[in-house]
């Protein structure tokens, strides 16, 4: 205490000043949060924060489509339950319990039944049994292995997309155009697709840039530098105007797929540079030893260089994942209503809430913060698990 705060006169002065400033900030900040701030704007926006315009009348005529994103959430919790059973505790267990618990807790939000029906609440509560089912499935069947979970995750993602998009002709799965997808659901879908795809693309680009094959190297450099040199928002806007021109006029266009591809390519250019840094930090002796043992080039890369290189650069890679997640809010430029844009549009359309815009944006900042902090927390745990910096 003394060493930390009052070791010398200037340190004491700094402590006192910082303490006073902090106390004032807390006093007025908490006072504002509790007394002055009008948080009613958040529940007024309500479910639109999560799914955007997905279940408005134009998107889903004559029925309530809220159950479809919720069913997708059940798939996620079931998968988390499986992961928990396979990992056997630790951070996976904690994440599974938090996601399942928070989803179920939403069922008890103090809305009237007209705003959040019994079906919605029951589906939210079903997250807990889903967690248990996933856990039991992994525990007592042959599905309980990491590779099965990976396969099932891909299947679940595709199933989610089909579920959300709908199938023409099937009564309960009325097709919902992607222009109505929105809210946090859209951010998460784009982020998951972007992360899953930009990682392998980034690895290929990084290897290409370090390749001895001159033409390949040149192509990778041009790609990486072009995509790193231009703002994502410009690329998104260009994709909106240019890409449709490259296809026949009656070719089905999908702004969501286009956004996902652009975000993936943009992010993979940054990912490639991170992974290249990791590859450069490796001692050349590793590759030489592997080659001396007789491993062919591709095995050396796949089993010797890449695992060590990636382990060395986990923080910047996760930083790039986080930045990708934050960048999904830029899809407003192509007219998609993600969680930030739908809030802005709401404020714009309801001027009586203009003075409460800051409450809404603070709330959204907390939502984003929970996700990004969760990501960096997991990355720190993974690093500890792999013993980075210890061997």
């Amino acid at each position, binding site marked *: 205490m003394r*060493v*930390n*705060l009052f*070791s010398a006169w200037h*340190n004491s002065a*700094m*402590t006192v000043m*910082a*303490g006073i400033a*902090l106390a004032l900030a807390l006093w007025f900040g908490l006072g504002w949060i509790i007394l002055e701030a009008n948080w009613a704007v958040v529940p007024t926006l309500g479910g639109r924060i999560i799914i955007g315009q997905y279940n408005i009348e134009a998107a889903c005529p004559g029925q309530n489509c809220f159950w479809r994103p919720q069913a997708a959430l059940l798939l996620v919790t079931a998968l988390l339950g499986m992961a928990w059973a396979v990992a056997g505790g630790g951070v996976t267990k904690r994440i599974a319990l938090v996601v399942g618990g928070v989803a179920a807790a939403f069922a008890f939000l103090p809305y009237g039944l007209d705003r959040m029906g019994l079906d919605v609440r029951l589906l939210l509560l079903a997250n807990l049994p889903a967690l248990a089912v996933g856990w039991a499935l992994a525990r007592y069947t042959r599905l309980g292995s990491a590779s099965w979970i990976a396969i099932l995750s891909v299947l679940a993602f595709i199933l989610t997309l089909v579920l959300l998009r709908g199938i023409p002709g099937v009564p309960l799965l009325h097709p919902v155009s992607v222009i109505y997808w929105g809210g946090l659901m859209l951010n998460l879908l784009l982020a998951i697709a972007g992360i899953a795809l930009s990682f392998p693309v980034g690895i290929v680009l990084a290897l290409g840039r370090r390749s001895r*094959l*001159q*033409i*390949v190297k040149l*192509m990778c450099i041009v790609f990486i530098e*072009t995509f*790193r*040199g*231009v*703002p*994502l*928002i*410009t690329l998104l*806007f*260009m994709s909106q*105007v*240019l890409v449709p*021109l*490259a*296809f026949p*006029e009656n070719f089905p266009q999908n702004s969501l797929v286009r956004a996902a591809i652009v975000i993936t390519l943009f992010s993979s250019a940054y990912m490639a540079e991170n992974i290249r840094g990791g590859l450069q930090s490796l001692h050349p002796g590793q590759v030489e030893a592997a080659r001396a043992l007789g491993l062919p080039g591709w095995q050396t890369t796949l089993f010797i260089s890449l695992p060590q290189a990636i382990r060395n650069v986990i923080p910047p890679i996760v930083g790039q994942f*986080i930045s990708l997640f*934050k*960048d999904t*809010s*830029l899809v*407003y*430029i192509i007219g998609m209503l993600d969680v*930030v844009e739908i*809030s*802005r549009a709401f*404020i714009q359309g309801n001027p009586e809430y*203009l*003075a409460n*815009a*800051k409450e809404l*944006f*603070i709330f*959204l*900042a907390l939502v*984003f*913060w929970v996700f*990004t*902090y969760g990501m*960096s927390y997991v990355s720190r745990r993974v690093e500890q698990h792999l013993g980075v910096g210890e061997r």
Partner: protein
Amino acid sequence: MATILRNLTYQGIPIWRNIFVIQWASQILSGVLVVVLVSWFFVNIGNAIQERDIPYGFSFLSRAYQTPIGQHFLDYKSSDSFLYAFVVAATNTIVVSIVGVILATVLGIIVGISRMSGNWIMSKVALVYIEFFRNVPLLLHLFFWFYIVLALPPVRQGYVIAQRLYINNGGVSFPWPSPTNSGLAGTWIVAAVAAVIIGWVIRRWLARRERDTGVASYPLAVGCAAAVAVGAAAWLILSVAGGAAPFVISQPEPHGTFGRIAGGFTVPGGLIALLIGLVTYTSSFIAEIVRAGVQSVGRGQTEAARAVGLSAMSTLRDITFPQALRVIVPPLISQCLNLTKNSSLAGAIGYSDLTNVAKTMTQTAPAVSIFILIMAAYLAMSLTFSLIGNLYNRHSRFTAN
């Protein structure tokens, strides 16, 4: 050629197993594939442009743009050409970038050093600042500040501080030097730049003398004094010659029936929100870079400096920080480039930056041509930043001695 012949006539390994042939064949194949795909893309766009009668070419650049631009630092009227409007928009982006880079660097260094402070409160406050600001999308930062500015009272009920500073939903107005009619303002600016250069030269000369001879020469103080003296002398001479001072301080004042603020300098609300958002967001990244850089300097350096009796402040300023710069500057430059690119979000809060104006331009001019222009503009900016980075790297490389 000889190599190819040898490789092809050598009978030991069949051609399809020859590593030389495989490598070049795969390279050429992939190269051709990429070229074909890219050209297919652009040829299709070209065809579509012709078939659907979409205008193309660069002849629009000399046409009048006919659209107002919200804020502009260069003089602009709607009858100006597209090319000039593009330059105006690019200037808007560059101004925001330069001001933002300077402020973000200063704030980032302060926060980064507080983060390493031995003082528990300072270090935790800095930690919360960093963790919160960099984990939230920039767009949210911008909207948050923008709606705070929008929610400020209108001009007539706005805040006035000491009759000098006007804060309202139109922006912030403060006193600002404005040139007088004597027409010598430009001359004085040239003289002031010359004064700064003279002061700099004197400082260098005195610093070298102090280093070589040990005579105490106070280089910084004398250099500053020389610069101020030359500047003041130029001011006096120009005032006498022109009959009036080259600049007077123009005060902001409410004007007309709506109480619009005239005089002084007004920073519009959108620009303020943009700058606060960009600076706080980027500075949280810079703070982490600064911390990593300073921590990369060996602990022995700090201990040795403290052992010879330097204070903690002096150790940081003269020993650790200069050495840390080698590690800090490359990622710092890439953050500055990020800030420049992130300023393209300005359109969301109504500031006329390059991307925003270009987006409006696509409604009346060929989109493809405009995309080529903005790609070129942003690539030029990022190349400038990497050039600065490379120059610094060359300058700061460990040399053999």
